[in-house]
């Protein structure tokens, strides 16, 4: 059932999963400590005939420690999480490695339109390949995508890449990915875009260099023929 959790098909998928794991360990620790303390106190101080309730104001120094020290430790954990989060965020969303290929992705109700640069590797030339809902990329190449939308908000999300970015009408947003394994993965729309949101599914086909080249020559010629 969870086989797809293991799929990491992009260069930064591992970083994001690592961050999730780091947070899971840190907050998991606090969660278990807090819940454990909570249930133990409930059990220990349940109503018993031989036990009277104590009068504690919370101003007692030796008791106040039990709140202030964990409190400071929470802050320390926060700092670790912030550092991890900002590093991953910088790599994925701020830093932009040099592209090998640039593609254009446009969302519309309710399909993805992909513009591949074709054999000459340049957009907006005669041999561009346009496809709907099927994106073809080559493995181990760095891609930039220029994301826009024709009508409403959409979201270009490839769970296997751990990649997600809103497509905003009127704006062009640039992102990148670097596929690391071949295969066909889901592209989901992750921003509600009308009644067809649930069918706005695309596929990303990651091909090895050879397959990709033959796909490209096949489709570039048919487009030219039309």
């Amino acid at each position: 059932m969870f086989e797809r959790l293991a799929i990491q098909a992009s260069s930064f998928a591992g970083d994001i999963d690592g961050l999730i794991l780091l947070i899971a360990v840190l907050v998991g620790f606090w969660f278990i400590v807090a819940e454990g303390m909570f249930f133990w106190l409930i059990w220990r101080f349940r109503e018993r005939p031989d036990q009277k309730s104590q009068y504690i104001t919370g101003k007692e120094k030796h008791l106040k420690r039990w709140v202030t020290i964990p409190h400071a430790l929470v802050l320390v954990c926060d700092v670790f999480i912030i550092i991890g989060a900002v590093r991953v965020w910088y790599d994925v969303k701020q830093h932009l490695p040099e592209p090998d290929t640039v593609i254009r992705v446009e969302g519309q109700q309710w399909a993805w339109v992909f513009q591949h640069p074709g054999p000459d590797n340049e957009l907006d030339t005669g041999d561009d390949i346009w496809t709907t809902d099927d994106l073809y990329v080559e493995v181990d190449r760095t891609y930039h995508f220029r994301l826009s939308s024709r009508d409403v908000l959409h979201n270009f999300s490839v769970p296997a890449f751990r990649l997600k970015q809103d497509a905003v009408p009127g704006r062009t947003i640039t992102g990148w990915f670097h596929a690391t394994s071949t295969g066909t993965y889901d592209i989901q729309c992750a921003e509600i875009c009308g009644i067809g949101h649930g069918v706005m599914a695309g596929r990303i086909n990651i091909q090895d260099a050879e397959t990709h080249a033959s796909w490209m020559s096949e489709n570039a010629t048919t487009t030219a023929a039309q």
Partner: protein
Amino acid sequence: MTEHIDQTAPHDAGEHHDDGHHDVNYAKIYVALLVLLVISILGPELGITWVTLITAFGIALVKATMVINNFMHLKWEKNFIKWALVVSLLFVALFFFGVAPDVMKHDGLRWVNDAAIASVERGIEPPHGEEGEHAAEDGEGEDHAEEGDDTTVEGEGATETVAAAFSAPDAYSATCATCHGPNGGGDGPGAAALDPQPASFATTEFWDGVTRESMVNVIQNGGAAEGLSAAMPAWGALYSDDEIQQIVDYVETFQP
């Protein structure tokens, strides 16, 4: 906020128990406000930017302060009232500065707001009234002019090459195939969500029921224009009349 108030005894709800009256010469303040108003109108007439800004907004601030302090008597009010008002203003400022990097600016790290840049370049078009009263009177004409704007903006985003290299099959696969299917069978990926189902161009029933004019009208103005499904969007903003004719030509190739 209220912790300093000692109130061992209930206060009487006297209407004006704390401040009978303030010794303000209201007439003097009124005259001062009028003088400031005159300055704020005359200042910008000089046409110097910084004078305009100071006279317009600096004086607005001074006038507002005078009204708030003297007419609203905030000067004599308790401090927590002042705090409440200042805090609400601060939150507005927070909102402004939090949003400015995204909305006020038109580009940033890895994003460009093409539409806003295009709108700045386009400038303000003369109102319809300048060219001829009838255009402004006519609601339809106005709508059309606005949709014309759309085209320019889309053109900016997708660059001119797209417009130059218009081909009906490309336009069909980019715009129509989502629902009507790559071969016009009404079986595109979007079709599953639609009720009524999108038209299939591969059936004779479809071609019995339409004229060329009605098809052009639906593509241009949407399905609702012909009493059909409102899910069919209007594409008149995206394609010119001529291009729509070409698309209809292409759709006719699906005819069985």
